[in-house]
Structures are given as C-alpha cells and as structure tokens.
C-alpha cells in the first residue's frame, strides 16, 4: 500500500471529522423552517426592540458626546443611518432569509464548504468574546459604584486600579457561571427587562434635564446645542460629523444585516417585509436610548462611565439597569461564542467551552479600552464579518443571473470554497489599504468593502466554474 493514498485517506478522514464536528454543533438547525413554525409581526417587534437595547447603549451615546458631534448632525445622522440599517434588513437580509428559510451557518456552509465555515466560526467566536467583554466592562462600572472604585477614563487603555481588575473579574466569573448554568433563563430575563429598560433610559434623561438648564420643552434644542452635543470633542478624541454618525448608525449592526447573521431570526418571518420591523430596535435603542445616554453624559459633566451616569439619572435603579442590560446581553453572546468555539473541540462539554470563552471574555474586559473604544470595535466587528454577507448576496442573486451555479461547494461536495475565502481576505486587505492610503476611517469602510466583496466573489466564481458554465449551456 503506497503512502500517498494512505495520506489522502487520512486527510479525508480528518476533513470529514471537521465537517462532522461542525454539523454536530448545528444539528438542530439544518432544515428550512416549516410553514407551521413561521411567526407573525408581533414576535419580531419584541425581538428587535429588546435586542437593540443593551448595556452598550449607555456607552455609545456618551462617546458621541465625547467625539464632539453637533446636535443637528447627531439627530439627522441617527435618523438617516438608522433608516439605512432598516432598509438593509428589509431589502438584503429578509428576502434571502424568507426564501431559503435556513440559518446563516447552514446556508453559508453550502456556499463556503465546512472548512471555511469553521474558520468563520472561530473569527465569529472571538468577536462575540470581545463584544461580551465590553458588556462586562460596562456592568463593572455599576457594580464598582458602591465600592468607591476608580472609574476608567475616556483615554484609558490599561486598567487604572486593582479595584477595577477585581470587579471585572467578579463580574466575569458571575456572567460565565450564569452562561454555564442556564443561559436560557438569562435570555428570558432580558426579554422581560426590555420595556422597563427603555423606560429607565427615558426617565433618567428627563430627570436630569433641569440640571442642564432645560425647564421647558422650548429650551431643549438650545441646551442640546450649547451644553450636550456642542460640536467640540474631548481632548485627544477625533471630531465626529454627520457622516460619522450616519455610517455608524447604519453599520454598527452590519454583521447582522449586510453580514446576514439575522437570517437566523428572519427565516421565521412569514413575509420578507418583516425586515422593516427592525425599525423598532433602531429608533428605540439606537435613537432614543443613544440620545438619552448622551444627555446623561452631559449632566455628568462629560463622564462617560456608564454606572455613574445611570446612577446620576435614576439612582439605584439606573445602576441596576446598567448591570441587567449588560448581563442579559453578555450571557447569550458568551453562549454563542462557546457554541462557535465548540467546533474546535467537539469532545469538550459545553460548560468547558463556555468557561474558556468566559476566560477570554473576562481577560479582554479588564482593558477599559474595549469599552472606551467601543465605536471602533463595533465598526471593526461588522467589517470583518461583512464580506461573507456579500458572498451570500452575490451567490443568491447574481450568480444565477450570470449563468453560474449557486452553492457551488455543496454541489461539488467541496470542503473549502477558495472564491469565498479569497473574497474574504482580499476585501479586508483592500479595506485596510483604503484606510492606510486614503485615510478613510473605519466607520466608512463597509460601503466600498461590500462592493469589492460582491464583485470579487462573482469574478472568482466565474473563474472557478467555466466547466459548469459550458455544461449549463449544453443543457440549455
């Protein structure tokens, strides 16, 4: 027996093993959603309103204030950017989700092959860990409040006190333990907390308005322009314009809409038009809540630590809101990270994987830069996952129109789609080059990046599929 076939067989077994591992993780999600499990608009209104009201909203509003955005630019930027986000859900994500009825991972597997999906899962897991880490940092600012802990400042990169490290560690252990013991209950608590959290955001902001000099509705715009969103950035921070706000509002959930992660949710929608219901999350969470937390930041004289500013507006309830809002979103995020990481070590129990994810998350949360540079991180998170969304879009809509075969990897039983992999890598390199050469900030890179990814995938698929093209023509 020659060694080459043996090696090939061994490689095939290893590859098959990897595919099997991935499939085992997605075991319950392989089939399209059956018609009797489709859901009406009410479920999506609640889901979107809840998902986009998290602890991080307490950070994003103050960061806009710190970046010196003007009041008019903020309001217009949020109105337009959130509208574009809603349109992205409605016209990009929902039509594919309601036609395939598959979740992101299973659909992507058909396009990329299981091995590339494995890489995508690992990247996704790391992003989830960092996102959950930022939420743990946010919660720590509220937990440390009664302990007199020194709060991190806007430009802090490293922990500024032993107290901060200990509190983050404590919060990280608690969040990880809860994720291991029963994340479903925490997720349910998040669902219950959403309407209350929205009220707390509004109430906290309204209650501090008199401190800023607003005593009637007529005063609001003047005070907003002169004392809240003044147009003057904090020391050492870049100034934000209308365009920054618009693109941030549009792309902060880029992984979900243009990146197609919300196929997993919208595949349950009876109609693609339910994508428009994302407006409930955008205009409650990413408009009202961001404005409210910006008002709180101004009332706190520019303090951006979420715990203290929430306490300033709503007392103990405000601090509790920061903790609850952070924990209820950090837990499912950590759980998803564990789920994705389990593809590496399928023999590990779920609790072990979640423990590792929790350790990574907590280690990341110790650095306040993760929270204080949240805007950059969120933009990077969306950008890194966006090319795969463009691949799905191009595969679904463009390839058949060009006579190319959809889901080529599935059709040919390929374990790794090189057009999808090259599209991913080249797009990110191109975005980096645009940033390095022309100085285009990270918040804007998603737009050119999406077009680059789409064109690349179509072109590379055409190179990959000439034989199939001929076969298709012969059949025709």
């Amino acid at each position, binding site marked *: 027996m020659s060694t080459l076939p043996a090696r090939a067989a061994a490689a095939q077994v290893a590859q098959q093993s990897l595919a099997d591992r991935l499939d085992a993780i997605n075991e319950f999600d392989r089939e399209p959603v059956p018609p009797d499990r489709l859901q009406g608009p009410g479920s999506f209104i609640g889901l979107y309103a809840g998902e986009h009201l998290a602890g991080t909203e307490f950070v994003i509003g103050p960061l806009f204030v710190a970046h010196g955005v003007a009041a008019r630019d903020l309001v217009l930027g949020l109105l337009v950017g959130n509208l574009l986000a809603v349109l992205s859900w409605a016209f990009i994500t929902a039509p594919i989700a309601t036609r395939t009825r598959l979740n992101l991972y299973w659909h992507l597997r058909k396009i990329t092959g299981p091995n590339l999906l494995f890489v995508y899962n690992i990247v996704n897991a790391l992003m989830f860990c960092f996102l959950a880490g930022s939420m743990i940092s946010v919660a720590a600012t509220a937990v440390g409040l009664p302990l007199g802990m020194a709060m991190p400042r806007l430009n802090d990169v490293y922990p500024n006190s032993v107290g901060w490290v200990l509190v983050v560690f404590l919060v990280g252990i608690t969040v990880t333990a809860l994720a291991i013991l029963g994340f479903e209950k925490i997720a349910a608590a998040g669902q219950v907390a959403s309407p209350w959290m929205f009220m707390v955001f509004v*109430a906290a902001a309204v209650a501090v308005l008199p401190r800023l000099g607003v005593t009637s509705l007529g005063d609001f715009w003047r005070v907003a322009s002169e004392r809240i969103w003044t147009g003057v950035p904090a020391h050492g921070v870049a100034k934000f314009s209308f365009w920054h706000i618009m693109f941030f509002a549009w792309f902060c959930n880029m992984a979900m809409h243009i990146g197609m992660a919300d196929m997993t949710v919208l595949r349950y929608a009876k109609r693609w038009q339910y994508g428009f219901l994302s407006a409930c999350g955008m205009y409650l969470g990413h408009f009202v809540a961001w404005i409210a937390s910006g008002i709180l930041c101004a009332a706190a004289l520019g303090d951006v630590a979420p715990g203290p500013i929430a306490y300033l507006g709503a007392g103990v309830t405000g601090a509790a809101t920061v903790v609850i809002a952070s924990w209820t979103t950090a837990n499912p995020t950590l759980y998803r990270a564990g789920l994705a990481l389990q593809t590496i070590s399928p023999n590990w129990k779920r609790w072990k994987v979640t423990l590792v994810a929790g350790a990574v998350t907590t280690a990341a949360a110790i650095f306040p830069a993760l929270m204080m540079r949240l805007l950059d991180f969120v933009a990077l998170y969306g950008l890194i996952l966006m090319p795969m969304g463009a691949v799905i879009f191009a595969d679904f809509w463009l390839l058949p129109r060009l006579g190319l075969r959809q889901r080529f990897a599935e059709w040919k039983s390929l374990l790794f789609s090189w057009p999808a992999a090259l599209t991913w890598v080249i797009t990110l390199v191109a975005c980096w080059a645009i940033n390095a050469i022309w100085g285009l900030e990270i918040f804007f890179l998603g737009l050119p990046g999406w077009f680059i990814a789409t064109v690349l995938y179509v072109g590379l698929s055409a190179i990959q599929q000439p034989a199939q093209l001929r076969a298709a023509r012969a059949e025709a």
Partner: protein
Amino acid sequence: MRTLLKLISFAGLGLTVVPSFLVFAGRIAWATHAALMLVGTVLWFGSAPFWMLKTKPHE
C-alpha cells in the same frame, strides 16, 4: 389573574417613567423620583415574567 398581573406591570412601568416628568416639571424632588422608580422596578419584575415570557422567533 393574568389581567391583574398586567395591571401591576403597567403600574410598575408608570412608576418608573412618570416621576421623571414630575421632576422635570419641578413638582417632586429627584430623590422621590429615584425611590418611586425603584418601587416601579420591583412591581415590574415581580409581575411581568408571569405573563410576558413566550417563545421567541429563533427558539
């Protein structure tokens, strides 16, 4: 029972948000608003889970 629980929940939400407008109008002190919010929070979490929890789309 479900209706009663809902009434308690909405009363809780009311206590969470309405006092802030009274602070804004100069009718009550900030400390009263903070205390009432806490009461509203307890009412909400003591009643809402019993009628609110249901299957989410992705479950």
